[in-house]
C-alpha cells in the first residue's frame, strides 16, 4: 500500500517536473524567436543609421521648425496635429514649473511670467525620437509602422487600420490620427528629402542650427561630433525605447 502511494507521488512529481521543464523550454524558444523581446537591428550595415541632435542652448523658440514641418509635410493646420513642436519651460523662483506650447510654438512665444519671478527659462523642440526599440512599431497589430533600414520609423498609410494603439504606446506624444487620411501620422525624418541628400525641413529652417542630424555609424558625421563634444541625454531613458534623439543641456524638468 505504502509503496503504491509512494509510486503515485513519484509519478505525480515526475509529471509536474516534466510540465515545468516543457513550459520553460517553450518560453525560451518564444524568446529566441523575438516574440517577447522587440528591437530593430540595422539590416544593412552599409547604409547610414540616422539619429538627431538638439542643442537646447541654441533654441530661441522662433517656431520656424514647426512651421516648416507643417508646410513641407502637409500636416493639418489645426493646433491638434504636430509632427514637431516647441515647448517653453519656465522654472519660477518658488520652484514651480510652467510649461507651454501655444499652437505648438508655431508663432513663437511670449513670456507671460514677469522676469522677477523667473529662475530660468528655455525652449525644448520635440519630434519623433526614431527609437530603435520603438514601442509604437512593437504594438502595431499589422506591421503598418516599421523601422526603415536607415533607422527611420515610418508608417505605411495604405496598410494602417487606424486602431490607434501606436498613439497610446508612444511615450513622447509624437503620433496622431490624420483627420483626413484617417490613419496614424508622425514625423518621417523628411524621408523624401533625406533620400535626395537634403536635410529635414525643420533642420533646414532652424536659424541657429539647434537641430542637427547625421549618420551614427560615421565617426566624422556632424551628429557623432555633437555627441562627442557635449554631454547628451535622451528623453525618458528609464523606458528603454532606444531613442535616437539626443539633447544637449536637457534639464530635469523636461518630460
Amino acid at each position: 500500500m505504502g509503496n503504491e502511494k509512494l509510486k503515485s507521488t513519484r509519478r505525480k512529481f515526475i509529471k509536474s517536473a516534466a510540465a515545468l521543464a516543457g513550459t520553460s523550454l517553450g518560453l525560451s524558444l518564444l524568446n529566441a524567436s523575438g516574440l517577447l523581446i522587440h528591437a530593430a537591428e540595422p539590416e544593412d550595415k552599409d547604409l547610414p543609421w540616422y539619429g538627431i541632435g538638439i542643442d537646447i542652448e541654441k533654441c530661441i523658440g522662433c517656431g520656424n521648425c514647426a512651421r516648416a514641418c507643417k508646410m513641407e509635410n502637409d500636416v493639418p493646420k489645426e493646433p491638434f496635429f504636430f509632427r514637431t513642436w516647441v515647448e517653453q519651460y519656465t522654472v519660477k523662483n518658488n520652484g514651480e514649473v510652467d510649461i507651454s506650447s501655444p499652437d505648438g510654438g508655431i508663432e513663437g512665444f511670449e513670456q507671460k511670467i514677469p522676469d522677477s519671478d523667473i529662475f530660468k527659462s528655455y525652449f525644448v523642440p520635440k519630434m519623433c525620437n526614431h527609437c530603435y526599440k520603438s514601442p509604437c512599431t512593437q504594438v502595431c497589430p499589422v506591421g503598418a509602422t516599421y523601422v526603415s533600414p536607415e533607422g527611420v520609423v515610418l508608417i505605411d498609410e495604405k496598410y494602417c487600420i487606424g486602431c490607434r494603439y501606436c498613439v497610446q504606446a508612444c511615450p513622447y506624444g509624437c503620433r496622431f490620427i490624420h483627420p483626413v487620411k484617417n490613419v496614424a501620422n508622425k514625423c518621417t525624418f523628411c524621408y523624401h528629402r533625406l533620400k535626395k541628400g537634403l536635410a529635414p525641413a525643420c533642420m533646414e529652417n532652424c536659424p541657429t542650427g539647434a537641430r542637427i542630424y547625421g549618420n551614427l555609424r560615421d565617426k566624422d558625421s556632424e551628429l557623432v561630433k555633437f555627441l562627442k563634444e557635449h554631454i547628451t541625454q535622451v528623453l525618458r531613458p528609464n523606458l528603454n525605447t532606444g531613442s535616437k534623439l539626443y539633447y544637449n543641456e536637457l534639464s530635469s524638468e523636461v518630460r
Partner: protein
Amino acid sequence: MDPTFQHLYDILANQQGYIFPNEIELQWGILIVIYPFITGLVAGAFILASLERVFNVKILKATYQLALLTALAFLIVAPMPLISHLSQPQRAYEIMITPHSSSAMAIFGFVYLWYLMVVLLLEIWFDYRHSFVVWSNEKKGVMKWVYRILTLGISDISPRVLKWDKKLGYIITIIGIPSAFILHGYVGFIFGSIKANPWWSTPLMPIIFLFSAMVSGIALVMLVYMVISYIRKQNIDINVLNTIGRYLFFVLLLDFTLEGLDQIQRIYEAEESFQILKLLVSGKLYLTLFVSQGLVGTLIPMITLVFLQFTKHKFKFQKAIYFIICILVLIGVYSMRWNVVIGGQLFSKSFAGFTGFKLNLIGLDGTLMAIFWMVIPFAILAFLLWLLPPWKMVKEGE
C-alpha cells in the same frame, strides 16, 4: 474655424496644466470601454459554467446551459466594438492575415477564434448533440432540417456514443478554463503592456481584468437566470441564488484585494507619475472610481452578500436584493473598464496636465452605438434560447 474640430477647440480651451499638443484628442472612446466589458462577461459566464461541470456543483445545473449560451451571445458581438472604432474598418481583416508577431493586439483574432470555435461552439455542440438528434426527429418542416444540420450528420445516440459526447465535452471544459483565463487575461495585457502609460502599465493588469471579468460574468448569469425564470413563469431556486451569491462574494473579495494591492503598491512606491495619478483619481475619476466602482459596485454588494448569507429573510426580499446586487456589480465592473480606458488617457504623458473627454451621443464612437452593441447580445441570447432551449433538452435515459 472648421466645425469638425469644434469639440477639440472646446477641450483645448479647458485643458488643465500642460499636455502634449497631439494629446488633446482622446484616441479610445466608449467602444473600447465596452469591448473589455463584453469579453469579461464572456469569460466570467464561461468560468461559472465550468465550475458546475468540472467540480460537479449539482445545484448549478439550472444555470449551466444558460451560462454557456450567454457567453456565446456576448462572444459573437465582442469584436464588433473593436472593428467599429477603427479608422479604417474595411482593413480589419489585415490583422488576421498579416498579424505582427510582437503586437499584443495582433493576437486577438486568434485568441478569439480559438475560444469561439474550439471551446464554446464545440462544448455547446457536444452538450446538445443528443437533443439535436431527438429534435430533428420530432420537428417538422424547416426546423427539422435546421436541427438535422446542427447534428453535423452524426445521429448515433447509442449510450456508448453519448458517453463519448460527455467525455469529450468534459475535456473541452478543461481546455476551456485556461482558455477563458487567457482570453480575458490577454485583454488586460493589451493595456498592462503599454509602458508609456503608468496608469495601465502593471503586471497585475491581466489578473485584475480576469477577476473583474469573473465578477461581471457571474452577476450577469445570475441576472439572466432570474429574468428568464420570471419570463417563463418558473420558480427561482433560492439555493441556486445563494450558491452563485457565495461565489460572487469570494470573487469580489479577491478582485477588491488585487486592485487594492495594485493601488497600495503605486502609493507606496510613489514613482514619477504618482502626482498626476493622485490628481487623476481625486479629480476626474473621483465619481467613477471611488463612488461607482468602489462603493456602489464593490463594497455595498460585498457587505450585502455577507448579510444575506448569515441572516434569514423572506424569499421575495432575498430575490429582490440579489437582483439589485447583480445590477450594482455590473455597474461597478463597467466603471472599472471606464476608469482604465478613459482614465488612462485623460492625463498627459508629460505628467503635467489633463485633457478632457466629451462623450458624444451619436456617431460611430458615440453612446448610442455603445448601447447598440450592448443590446445586440441580449437579442442573440433570446434567439439562442429559442433555438436551443435548455429546459427542453433531452435528458439521458429518455
